[in-house]
């Protein structure tokens, strides 16, 4: 296993100590941090490894939240709802992927963006099942106190993050990961040497949706109330990309750090600029893209390289 992957696991494991330092609000931030990292790592499979500009993260986050939410509202425990959401998202994404991933570049971007719209409206109109625009209430599980609840969902999300990281590392080391990077570099050539690119891309798209969907289900259980415009928010698609760009495309460690840095920035900006925080966020995105197109890790990468040469 490479250093970077090892470092990723060390980083994630060190996050697990958060409850030693903070109260419920810190745990809430920690839970969001884990969720963001799951989204960013998952996006990286299709966006970083395979090089497809997917904006579908929000679609599968919402789908998972609703699969999980509907099951939870019908009395299923989290242990069933979360895997069901993950499996459901995997299946839907893998099937759709076979068709959508034939598109490239802008066309794929637009199609994946439209998925959000289609899923949101479908769920919006299935009023009997999902409550439609009135949202879905998810009953509180028997509360064991503020801290215990916060702790429970934090570790739930954290466990999912760990699983996502392991998945990403396994993919990157496997034949699948190799195949995806072939696809990124030259899909036509990869096809010609006999790689089943459609299968590879479908699996990648499925995997990138699987943990996002599961995270959606945990999230639904955590916030007790979801409505279509909340969980199918296009920002859930854009944020992972920004995080990946902050950290550096393709590197799981970089992407995860990007997610944490992004959350930190978002929190600071949100607290300090009530009226104009989304504008400030926009400025950050623009500056990042114009002046640091390869992410924070590119700064670090240069230093590492320098150090290795001097050993």
């Amino acid at each position, binding site marked *: 296993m490479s250093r970077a992957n090892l470092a990723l696991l060390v980083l994630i494991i060190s996050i697990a100590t958060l409850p030693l330092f903070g109260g419920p609000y810190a745990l809430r931030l920690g839970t969001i941090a884990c969720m963001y990292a799951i989204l960013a790592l998952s996006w990286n499979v299709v*966006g970083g490894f395979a090089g497809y*500009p997917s*904006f579908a993260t929000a679609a599968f986050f919402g789908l998972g939240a609703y699969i999980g939410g509907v099951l939870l509202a019908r009395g299923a425990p989290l242990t069933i709802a979360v895997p069901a959401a993950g499996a459901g998202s995997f299946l839907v994404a893998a099937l759709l992927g076979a*068709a*959508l991933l*034939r*598109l*490239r*570049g*802008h*066309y794929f*971007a*637009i*199609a994946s*963006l*439209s*998925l959000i*719209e*289609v899923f949101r*409206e*479908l769920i*919006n*109109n299935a009023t009997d099942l999902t409550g439609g625009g009135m949202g879905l209430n998810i009953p509180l599980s028997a509360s064991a106190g503020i801290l215990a609840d916060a702790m429970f969902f934090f570790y739930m999300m954290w466990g999912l993050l760990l699983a996502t990281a392991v998945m990403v590392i396994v993919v990157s080391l496997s034949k699948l990961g190799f195949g995806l990077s072939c696809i990124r570099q030259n899909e036509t050539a990869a096809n010609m040497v006999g790689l089943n690119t459609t299968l590879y891309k479908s699996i990648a798209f499925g995997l990138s949706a699987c943990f996002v969907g599961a995270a959606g289900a945990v999230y639904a259980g955590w916030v007790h109330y979801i409505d279509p415009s909340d969980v199918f928010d296009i920002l859930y698609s*854009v944020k992972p*990309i*920004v995080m990946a*760009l902050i950290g550096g495309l393709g590197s799981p460690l970089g992407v995860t750090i990007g997610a944490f840095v992004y959350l930190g920035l978002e929190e600071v900006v949100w607290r300090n600029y009530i*009226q*104009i*925080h*989304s*504008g400030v*966020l*926009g*400025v*950050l*995105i*623009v500056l990042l*893209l*114009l002046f640091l*197109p390869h992410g924070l890790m590119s700064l670090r990468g240069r230093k590492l390289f320098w150090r290795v040469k001097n050993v």
Partner: protein
Amino acid sequence: MLAAQIVVNALVLGCLYACIAIGFSLVWGVLNVINLMHGSFIVLGAYFAWSLYQGFHIAPWYALAIAAPLFFLFGYVIQRLILNRVITAPVLVTLTLTFGLDLILNNAMIYYFKADYRKLILTPPTGSVSIAGAVVPVDRLIATAAALALTGVLYLILRRLRVGRAIVAVRLDRDAAVLMGVDVNSIYAIAFGLGTALAGCAGVLMALIFPISPLTSTAYLGKAFVVCVLGGLGSVSGALAGGILLALIEGVGSAMIGPAHAITLSFMLLIAFLILRPQGLLGRKGFE
């Protein structure tokens, strides 16, 4: 009777949709940039018309003449200063960049105009006319005529003017255009300026019809997406065909299966078109 009314509604609405989408289509086709700011440009245009009418009683159809050069300049500068730096970057970067810019522009509008809805009310009101048993509001007819005129002007620019031919050349084959001595950067900026001007003018016209708020920008943007993909990229006639097709589908869809499904239907159609006919209704294959 109902059918006639729905068709007439759709023709009028379709021209407005085409007007919303045409600048977006131009920028996507020529610069290969999906401009997520497009919706906010339209809203800005609508505020522009509203302010002129409120402040100086200048009717929107005259406001077009003032809006066009101003928005052209605005777009030109944005392209030169910001977009041009990443113009060759992958779609991920350009898309995210325009998203960031849109956050800024939209937030600025919320801050400046507040989020509450404004309405441009013409005094006296223009009323409606009957055509072949169907009722058509006059303000929509005016907007439709203006939208058609705008698309006509764009068509002429692209067809007749030297700069227009250069834009088309860059759109068809960038490298060949460079070899022929076209200054691509300046063509990019002009095309983006034109796209912005068209968005601004579309906004001026929309002010006649829709309530104005920064919050409506995503609805405009969504229409532009669908129209572009249905009609095919970068062509004037494609945008018209896409707009009318979308309006027809929405109209018939909401009458047949309920208005709640109209948006779902249009986006499903978009995905189907992308997969089955990415060149659009009228487009030629092989531009991608």
